[in-house]
């Protein structure tokens, strides 16, 4: 049986994004030299939202890009699957920039591990920071987020669903538990 528990609703979601935007500004002392890069696919939209929050606060848009890490994934090489590859779209040089990577759910850490490899191939960033809307634990590699929307302790069998207006028509975060 599946049970669904709403953890964060639409209003909470918006307040969470605002807080994350302020935290990013506080840490980086403004938008100078800052680049926001979303991880396909959902991180891409979260990154856009954060960028427009930052614009509201500071008056200018930060550099914004999208990273596809498919070709860097370690499960591709093990023949586990052939995921669909999509293009990376970063129209600026990341060298000497403070790069803020954005992902929706931080779980095993393997996607972020691939993203770090991919970023290194694009140039030498001054710093790389990580935003995760949800940190659900169960890391398999030593990676942590610098900015976390919500810590949600989970079991491996549970599922965290981040809903976004751009994809699902509404914002929110649900926890799905599957019990037999």
């Amino acid at each position, binding site marked *: 049986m599946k049970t669904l528990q709403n953890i964060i609703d639409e209003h909470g979601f918006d307040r969470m994004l605002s807080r994350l935007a302020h935290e990013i500004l506080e840490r980086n002392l403004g938008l100078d030299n800052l680049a926001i890069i979303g991880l396909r696919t959902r991180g891409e939209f979260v990154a856009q939202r954060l960028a427009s929050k930052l614009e509201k606060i500071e008056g200018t848009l930060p550099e914004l890009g999208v990273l*596809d890490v498919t*070709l860097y994934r370690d499960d591709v*090489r093990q*023949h586990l699957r*052939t*995921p669909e*590859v999509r*293009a990376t779209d970063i129209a600026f040089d990341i060298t000497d920039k403070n790069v803020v990577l954005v992902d929706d759910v931080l779980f095993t850490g393997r996607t972020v591990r691939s993203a770090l490899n991919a970023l290194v*191939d694009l140039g030498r960033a001054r710093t790389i920071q990580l935003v995760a809307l949800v940190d659900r634990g169960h890391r398999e590699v030593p990676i942590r987020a610098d900015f976390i929307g919500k810590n949600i302790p989970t079991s491996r069998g549970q599922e965290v669903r981040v809903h976004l207006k751009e994809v699902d028509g509404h914002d929110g975060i649900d926890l799905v538990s599957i019990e037999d």
Partner: protein
Amino acid sequence: MSSLSIPHLLGLQGVPKEDISLILDSTDSFLEILDRPIKKVPTLQGKTVVNLFFENSTRTRISFELAERRLSADVVNFAASSSSVKKGETLLDTARNIEAMKVDIVVMRHSAAGAGHFLSERCTSRFINAGDGAHEHPTQALLDMCTIRQKHGSLEGLNVCIIGDIGHSRVARSNIYGLITMGANVAVCGPPSMFPYDLEKLGVRVFTNIDEALQFSDVINVLRIQLERDAGADFPSLREYHNSFGITRERLDKLGREITVLHPGPINRGVEIESEVADGPYSVILPQVTNGVAIRMAVLYLIGTRAE
């Protein structure tokens, strides 16, 4: 769907539309890599690819080799001119020996039609056909389709004419199969002496007048006259071929609209195509070469990571 239904890429005949679309759609990501300062991703790390070329080729082999290296595969090159084939070894023995060295993917060119098909049924490696006789050259057709799509957005309903030595051209055959699958209207044009024996079965319109063919076309794919193959036997002289079928600025200007010009190379300037056209604004000959590396990366990625 994000996985190919076919285990090998031996030709485009019978390959479903979904597979062709998947390869073409994946190519964008690989094009992006070619623009980076570090043009390399670790995707095929630990995989070994053999380029098994029983027939001479420079650009196709270089294009494949670059694609393989940019995906971090280990690459071994095999050229028939310097190999045991000269000592009388059979095709199957050569392939089995190479395979015994634990190879994952074989990229093969051979002068006999169906050579890749023959080996793929008898070996365990994945095969990619890089040209087999006058049969097929699927990656060339895929890169042509990719280039046309960049320029026109879609292949559906587009009028594409292939011009020249259709009968001896594996490029023509693969293009015809692939383009028809993708919904394009395909025509061929050339001297009837250069048409293939099974022309009616291919499902294409046939022109023997170049100006009528150009009237029909949104895109033309101009094939090379294979001078080394004694093409002179099929028409009186190169000058006559140029006068009857050569693509000239004057012929294109008469149309009063833009048509896209492809050529698989190497070009015989002044024979099948005039320099002014080959270097002109409608020519996509150099983008074809760039797309060639990206499309081969896409094919290697999709074939190489496909689950057993």
